[in-house]
């Protein structure tokens, strides 16, 4: 993968940088140039996503893409953050069987995947149980 591609995503993947529309208060992640329906590129301002939320839905990937071969089975979920924004990421540090919709999580900075034969690492965010070891809702 050409290095500019993951580099461009660093603000979102490393720091959860999103945007908020000044007019409607709606939050957009990842960032975009124009808020839907406005045709106005001036309303979106930088905004940092909260780092706590709960599991909205999830799946356990048993048949993975090649770059995740060594990690299967692993859990991918959609997390609803405390401000209502939804993000897709892996759910780590717990057994798949213990995960339930509504489980409280926090977002942490983690290694996400390894690219290609040279094993270039990509970092980003994963969700982990809000209280370590506690997966009950």
């Amino acid at each position: 993968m050409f290095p500019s591609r993951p580099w461009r995503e660093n603000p979102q993947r490393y720091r959860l940088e999103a945007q908020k529309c000044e007019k409607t208060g709606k939050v957009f992640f990842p960032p975009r140039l124009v808020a839907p329906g406005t045709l106005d590129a001036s309303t979106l301002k930088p905004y940092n996503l909260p780092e706590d939320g709960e599991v909205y839905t999830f799946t356990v990937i048993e048949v993975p893409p090649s770059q995740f071969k060594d990690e299967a089975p692993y859990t991918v979920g959609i997390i609803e953050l405390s401000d209502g924004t939804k993000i897709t990421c892996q759910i780590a540090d717990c057994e798949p069987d213990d995960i339930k919709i509504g489980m409280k999580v926090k977002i942490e900075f983690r290694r996400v995947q390894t690219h290609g034969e040279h094993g270039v690492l990509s970092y980003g965010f994963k969700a982990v149980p809000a209280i370590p070891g506690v997966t009950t809702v």
Partner: protein
Amino acid sequence: MRDVAIIGVGMNKWGEVWESTLRDMFVEAALESIKDAGVDHLDGMYVGSMTPGLFVGQEHIGSMLADYLGMKGLPGTRVESACASGGLALKSAVLEIASGHSDIILAGGVEKMTDCSGDDATYALATAADQEYEVFHGATFPGLYAMMARRHMHEFGTTREQLAHVAVKNHKNGAKNPKAQYPFEVTLEGVMTSVMVADPMRILDCSPITDGAACVIVADLETAKKYTNNPAVKITGFGHATDNIALHSRDSLTCLEATKLAGERAYKMAGRKPEDIDVCEVHDCFTIAEIMVIEDLGFFEKGKGGTGAESGETHIGGRIPVNTSGGLKSKGHPVGATGIAQAYEITTQLRGEAGDRQVEGAKVGLCQNMGGSGGSTVVHIMEVV
């Protein structure tokens, strides 16, 4: 706008077609459709193909397929909207005929998916999802639909058994379709104990990797009369809509907004309601997809789609037969060809030529073809004249 009809259909026998190339499969289906329509020329063609570049390393197929069909010089357009590429090719053909610019257009679809490894095919299909914000984190297509399924089960109480009933019903229909990839029946227990792919989606909840092509000939009604005695199957309405391709950007994971919108647009144009539809083909790339689609097209109340296959309402002979061809599940899913094969099945049904899987007295049919995890949908309503 002029009245537009499908006057000929063709498709090859789908499966792992190792002996044929992408171009051969397309030409086989195209010749069958041209012969069926009885036409002696084409004014143009639109071919749906999701990603021949990734599957076989070949782009620019609009020209290549016109050449290999023996019609060098023909305006040939390749159309892409992920798994809805075929439906979009049909819509493009309909618009060109309706406008009066052309009289006879071939709408086709083709995908050659087994000339690469399973890993490469998984990668190619995943390009229909958000690469940077879904696929980056390890999501796969079965995984995305699995997340919708889990949410549907959570919100509405849809059961594991109800998902399996969709696969059982579609394989029962596909067993009667000589062109299906997997023309055999499966049992409820067989589906529910098959290999897990992405919990709760098991392998028999998923449509397969398939080589295949399908074509239909579209013409205005006046031209149709000159060439064929086949009952003309008029396209009375179409609808096309888009949605966020990333699931996390949607307000709801249990409503396929693009399908709802495309359906509403098609019903409005045709002057029809869900109750008027006698037979339909919908995009059952995964069992949960059929359940959600039949809700969003208005055949079932939201949350009640799971009862369709379980109660028999969506079986042949039921209130609203769904996927009489076997659907993507049993017939196969060569992604770009699927939307055209749906039109092939509905045309066959409305002509009364579907043999053992015929829906008696079918006069009005509907096709719903969906891209990715629902990011695009094309719906056509067809009626026998």
